[in-house]
């Protein structure tokens, strides 16, 4: 066998092992799943609200207007006004921006760090694996909200701290997922083949292993996107999240809590916003899991 033949053989092995490109077909398959469809729609609404919220919002989110205080939902204020007369719809729209920002940044940060650590642990194995996973287990042992509370209490409360704290508490989950997948993939023939032709470790991982472990990673990312939003809302509810007067949904819930007997709309709408967003991203995550991991679907 000459060199050219060997290369062709390896290339065909690699092509055979790689999953087919799924971009468009993934979307179609998701759309066919009714629950995933709802998830996609809700998530799309939240994303649109976050992007175009400031343009759509009818009022200034922080402008105080005591004459409008506690106005129930109606023509002027579709979701009513809060204890300082601020329009709740406007604040919900601005809140979507904060929630989405926290979701995207914290999950992205958690994913990148988790990916690197999980890949190192899974690929290198041995002592590196033991040390990295011991640290991950230690972090994972803490309840997420407790660890986030500690981190926010130690550092100054603010959007960056909240996002970092949520990312840190989620790193072990991403790292575990990646490590597990890498352990399976690294023993496969296409990896051996790539190694045999002298591919460097980094390239081998980026070009060959990563595309094959993306599916579980995408599922975990989508699922924890919703969790990140809940943790941010919880921290803001406790006064440790985004500083006032920014309109975080958690802060709005806490503000409205004192008045919910007389003005229930002050808690109903931010509550619905959190619930729907979490539901949307969870449904989307479930749908993605069904599509990307057919084995789980079969088991169900």
């Amino acid at each position, binding site marked *: 066998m000459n060199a050219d033949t060997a290369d062709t053989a390896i290339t065909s092995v690699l092509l055979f092992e790689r999953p087919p490109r799924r971009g468009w077909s993934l979307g179609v398959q998701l759309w066919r799943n*009714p629950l995933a469809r709802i998830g996609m729609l809700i998530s799309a609404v939240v994303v649109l609200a976050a992007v175009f919220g400031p343009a759509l919002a009818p009022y200034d989110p922080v402008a*105080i207007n*005591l004459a409008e205080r506690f106005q129930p939902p109606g023509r002027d204020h579709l979701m*009513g006004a809060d*204890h300082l007369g601020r329009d709740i719809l406007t604040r919900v729209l601005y809140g979507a921006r904060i929630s989405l920002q926290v979701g995207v940044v914290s999950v992205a940060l958690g994913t990148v760090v988790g990916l690197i650590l999980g890949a190192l642990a899974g690929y290198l194995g041995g002592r590196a694996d033991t040390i990295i996973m011991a640290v991950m287990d230690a972090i994972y042992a803490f309840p997420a909200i407790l660890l986030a509370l500690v981190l926010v209490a130690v550092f100054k*409360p603010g959007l960056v701290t909240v996002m970092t704290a949520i990312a840190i508490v989620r790193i072990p989950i991403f790292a575990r997922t990646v490590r597990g997948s890498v352990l399976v993939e690294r023993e496969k023939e296409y990896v051996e083949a790539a190694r045999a032709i002298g591919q460097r470790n980094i390239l081998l991982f980026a070009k060959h292993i990563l595309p094959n472990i993306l599916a579980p990673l995408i599922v975990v990312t989508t699922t924890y996107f919703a969790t990140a939003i809940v943790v941010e809302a919880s921290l803001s509810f406790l006064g440790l999240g985004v*500083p006032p007067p920014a309109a975080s949904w958690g802060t709005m819930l806490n*503000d409205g809590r004192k*008045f919910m007997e007389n003005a*229930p709309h002050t808690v109903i709408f931010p509550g619905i916003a959190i619930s729907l967003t979490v539901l949307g991203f969870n449904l989307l995550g479930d749908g993605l899991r069904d599509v990307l991991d057919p084995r789980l679907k079969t088991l169900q």
Partner: protein
Amino acid sequence: MKSQGIRILVLLLVASWVIAACTPPPAPAAPTQPAAQAPATAAPKAAAPTGPKAGGTLTFAMKEDVTSLDPLKAIQYGDIRLNILVAQQLVAPDRTGKFVGVLAESWETSADGKTWTFKLRPNVKFHNGQVVTADDVKWIFDRILDEKAGCAMRSTYAGIKLQAEVLDPSTIRFTIQSGMGPFLSYLSLLNRTAIIHRDSYDAEGKVTKIIGTGPFMMDEVKPGQSYTLVKNPNYWKAGEPLLDRVVLKVITDPVVRLNALRTGEVDMAEDLPMSDVKKLLANPDPNFTVQIYYINSGERLVMNHTRPPFKDKNARMAVQYAFDRNQYNEAIFFGLGQVHNQPFTPDNVWRLDVPMVMPDLKKARDYFKASGLPEGTPVKFLLMANQKDRGEVIQAMLSQVGFKVEFDIVDSAAWNSKGQALDYDLLLGTMTGIFDPDRPYGYLTKASGGNWLVGGYDSPKMNELLAAGRAEVDVAKRKQIYKQVVELVQEDAATIYVLGLPWVEAWRNTVKDYRPGTSPALMMMDASDGLNKTWIDK
């Protein structure tokens, strides 16, 4: 199945919108100014009266935990609630503001006001059974003056060069070199000058159990949860108290306090949510009484004079004219506070005729321009978590002028330490226990330990006025002096006295013969009324 789930979801959403939309709109917000001092009460119809019954336990929901069991160091609100039931002082003001004896039976003062001789009430016993003597009183004042003990009133008593001398077991003489005018008010500050037994202190100087002379004795302490007190069988007022036991339960959330009162988990509660108080005053609950009352107290907006931007008088004037007390009162207290420029109730002898600076946005902007500060000048507002709403309202007001207010929200311990280090631009302070103008205005000099609570304000003219006010005994002359003090406060925008706080207490129908006092406490400072005569009908 799935489409049914979707239908249910849609139905739920529509239902919640309908529920929210059906909430009746609130009455139009009209700025209200409650009548001076007169308490507003929302009480259910009274049942047929029955005689007082001894015994029973009263549970009270207090809004703050006790931070120190040592009355001589206690400065926080929760401390006062506990101390006043357990410990007592020599003198205290009655409901009219006149000083009357508590542990002192009578007193005499020399013509120059520098010598004060107190005769102690006979046969008053501490909770350990020992009789209160002049020697016990001197021991307390020596302790306050001891720098190592770290007592709150040390700088005040050292400043007036106080000396205590025992004349006989029931007579004590104090000599002072200044402070003749407010001296009795100093002695009245229960939480800083309480006469407790020396055995209250352990070898390290810490108090684990207050051995006082009050109607109740300490029994069980669960920090952060509850403080149980039992009846003092040897109390010096015959037939008092009637209750066997008082449990002070720490419930920091006002909504939870109200619910605890509604369900009967507690018999009494303080500081309920203002929106509910307003509603309860209009439509009383059949199971409990809500009372709102006013005492000399105040919130003030403090600007840091020691660093930019408020080192500049123009910047402070801009805040003074941008700040709208009535709007603040409406937003935070639902109009139930009493806006003022001096922390005294409208009918108090020390409420002086000095017109209040009214908000004027144009003037505020002019002063801001004159200060030369750039638009969006950052201002660090030091706040505790429960002051968030207040901060947001003030932030909105100051943003109209050109300030960009940023919050530094911390816990009470960090608030104290950052405040004392003058690490803030703005903060909100509150004060109670005001019986004399020297207490609130006394902070306006560098010599005061509380100077950080007015932003480190320093003015030679103010120092002279305060020294004169302290040395003067004649009330009419003192009023003239303090009028100039209040005028100078506004002229310099030294600090902004915002409003008198609405004090709220509520008790279930089973609690009888309770009458709120003249301080945020369960007892009258002069040991009459309050819980002394309260009984429980269960």
